[in-house]
């Protein structure tokens, strides 16, 4: 589904991501962990096509992010760590805009909006302007908008920050459902307990370099993910 091959990205003199390679197969929830400034967001933004990278190749479902960006973007959805959404729209106007861009038919979008808005308990607020939303509500709206076109791959940067426990639980269930249906999820998190319970595979990045990746068992063995992470960071 997602293939990252020898990705390198520099900011001036600093290498934010250095020769990173990863493969995420359909049906996998892939966790991406690392300290602040390790290169997680840079990698995710490169995958989504909103950051030009220096070298390497990224393909989604066989399409190159560099040469066929639109085809790639049609297949994926992205939820950033701090969703700055359009504050001049209401929640429903925003969802409708996203659905228009992905050309989701009216009856399908109606059904999905109703379903996900009810799941995330946002139905009562969709008529309100996004400017009046709390951080958590914006995060919920970003999640709903990401699910509207039934993407094959979802890229998420710290998706659980700001969500209440119930919404976090709902999101985890949805993530599992998507992967069970053949989709894939690649997300970054600092909550190691969540990563340990939710992910099929995990990758640890430090200073832009991938230092360990594989199935949860391969990465952590008999230890906890926290112990392994702290040990690798030292």
């Amino acid at each position, binding site marked *: 589904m997602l293939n990252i091959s020898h990705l390198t990205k520099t900011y001036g003199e600093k290498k934010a991501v250095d020769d990173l390679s990863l493969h995420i197969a359909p049906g996998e929830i892939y966790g991406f962990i690392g300290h602040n400034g390790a290169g997680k967001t840079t990698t995710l933004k490169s995958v989504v096509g909103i950051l030009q990278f220096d070298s390497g190749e990224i393909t989604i479902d066989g399409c190159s992010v560099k040469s066929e960006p*639109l085809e790639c973007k049609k297949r994926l959805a992205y939820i950033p760590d701090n969703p700055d959404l359009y504050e001049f729209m209401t929640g429903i106007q925003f969802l409708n805009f996203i659905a*228009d*861009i992905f050309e989701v038919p009216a009856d399908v979008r109606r059904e999905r909006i109703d379903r996900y808005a009810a799941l995330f308990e946002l139905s009562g607020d969709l008529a309100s302007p996004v400017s009046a939303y709390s951080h958590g509500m914006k995060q919920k709206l970003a999640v709903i908008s990401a699910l509207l076109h039934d993407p094959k791959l979802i890229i998420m940067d710290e998706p659980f920050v700001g969500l209440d426990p119930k919404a976090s639980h709902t999101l985890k269930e949805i993530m599992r459902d998507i992967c069970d249906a053949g989709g894939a999820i690649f997300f970054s998190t600092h909550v190691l307990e969540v990563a340990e319970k939710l992910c099929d595979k995990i990758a640890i990045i430090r200073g832009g370099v991938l230092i360990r990746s594989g199935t949860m068992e391969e990465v952590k063995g008999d230890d906890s993910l926290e112990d392994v992470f702290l040990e690798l960071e030292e």
Partner: protein
Amino acid sequence: MLKALLKKQFLELNAFYFQNRKTGKNRSKAGTAGFIALYIVLFLFLAFTFFMVAQSLAAALIPLGYGWLYFALMGLISLAFGVFGSVFNTYAGLYHAKDNELLLAMPIPPRRILLVRMIGVYAMGMLYSCLIMVPTIVAWQLNAPGLWPLIAQLLLTILLSFVVLALTCFLGWIVALISARLKNKSMITVLLTLAFLALYYVVYFRISAFLRNILEHTDALGRAMRSLYPLYAFGRAGEGDGLSLLVFASIALALLALCVWAMARSFIRIVTMNRGDGAKKTDYRAQRAQKASGVPNALLRREIRHFLGSPTYMLNCGLGLVLMVAAAVAALIKLDAVRGALDMIRENMPVLAGAMPVIGCALVIVLAALNPVTAPSVSLEGKSVWLLQSLPLRSADILTAKLRLHLYLCAGPTVLCAAVLAFVMGAEFSVGVYMVVTALLATMLFAALGLMLNLKRPNLSWTNETVPIKQSMPVAMVIFGGWAFAAVVVGAYFLLRRWCGTQVFLLGCIVVFAILYRLMNRWLMRRGAEIFSSL
């Protein structure tokens, strides 16, 4: 603390003008110098225009002993221009900054936050006031040189800028007080601001008429002085009268102090007031928003919502629309008077008779330049630019939507204004059509130019939307550059009229403008799209 706040404000301004926001590096010296030079040229161009007015008044009034009246008249113009230049960003600049919560959560007295923000409003008002006051002083010194009057005039310029600040802040404060309690804020804020501005200019024109009346009936001077004493004090101070300078300084400072006091008292209440947006929850299904539409229309609708959702955007980039419609309506209402005036010009100045359609067209272009809708549109994407970049959209389509918004907003009023002007001046049908098409193409040029400039000088990390709208080089360049462009059109006509008539000239304009637009559009769809993708 005040120093730290000022430093933050300065860093924001410095970063906006002199740094590439993506790399954090300073812009190239040549590029920065070029833009500064362009600003200076525009300033000088406008200042020269006002100098011509000032010089003719000074030459007529100073020898007659009415120097005070000269200063009073020019001071009024400066006040009007200063208020016009800064009033539209006052409300958003003072009350709607994105760092409100950050600053209010810190142990900073709210009045200091207010004071620092007022400096931004002050700078804008000062800039516009100086456009009049500098030529006014130069014209005075040419006609009646003197060191003490010069010092007094410079002090007067500073004092006048305080009055501009007090007036604009007062207008912004009233709008903030009212709109804090309203639900549909954007449109009502725009209407309120326009209403206050209209009221202000009605008073302004009455005072101007009053002064003209004095000029014609000097016996009424004594009465007038008594009833308009601050204005008289301003005029006398301009002549170098120390006591009058003291009186005017007291009035200006008292006015400013009163304004600051009133605003400081209510500042925290206004910025922390519940916005009232979600007081009553409504069913989103009732909004009938779940109607599917194509990508181009979805993008256009997004642009429209953005424009209508921001009073600052509407007021600063759409004022020309109101003025164009108002000019057309006024010309029709005063049809006989306007036609009489035009006939008089034709009789007394035959050289202008053939130029009427070109001058009329230039007037519409001047008004069209007051609508730089596309000029801040890229910067206004701000931190949410990731959305458009992560969606499966061609950047060219996004830019096209921005152009479409500009053209859809401006086309109607431009056509109306140009057509009414053609009708009022009794132009032949074909000339009328050429005028309309020329003005329309100029509008298209401004749309493309604004977008190009904003792509070259984007600012996505603003904390207050007045920064990309009001303190923006692309916006200033479209407005002032548009005015200069109108002057160039008229100048070109006078240069070429020996070889071509009005119709041929307008037809030539149409061809040149169309070619220019085609080239600019081509750049936007190729290079511009690449720039947008990499923002």
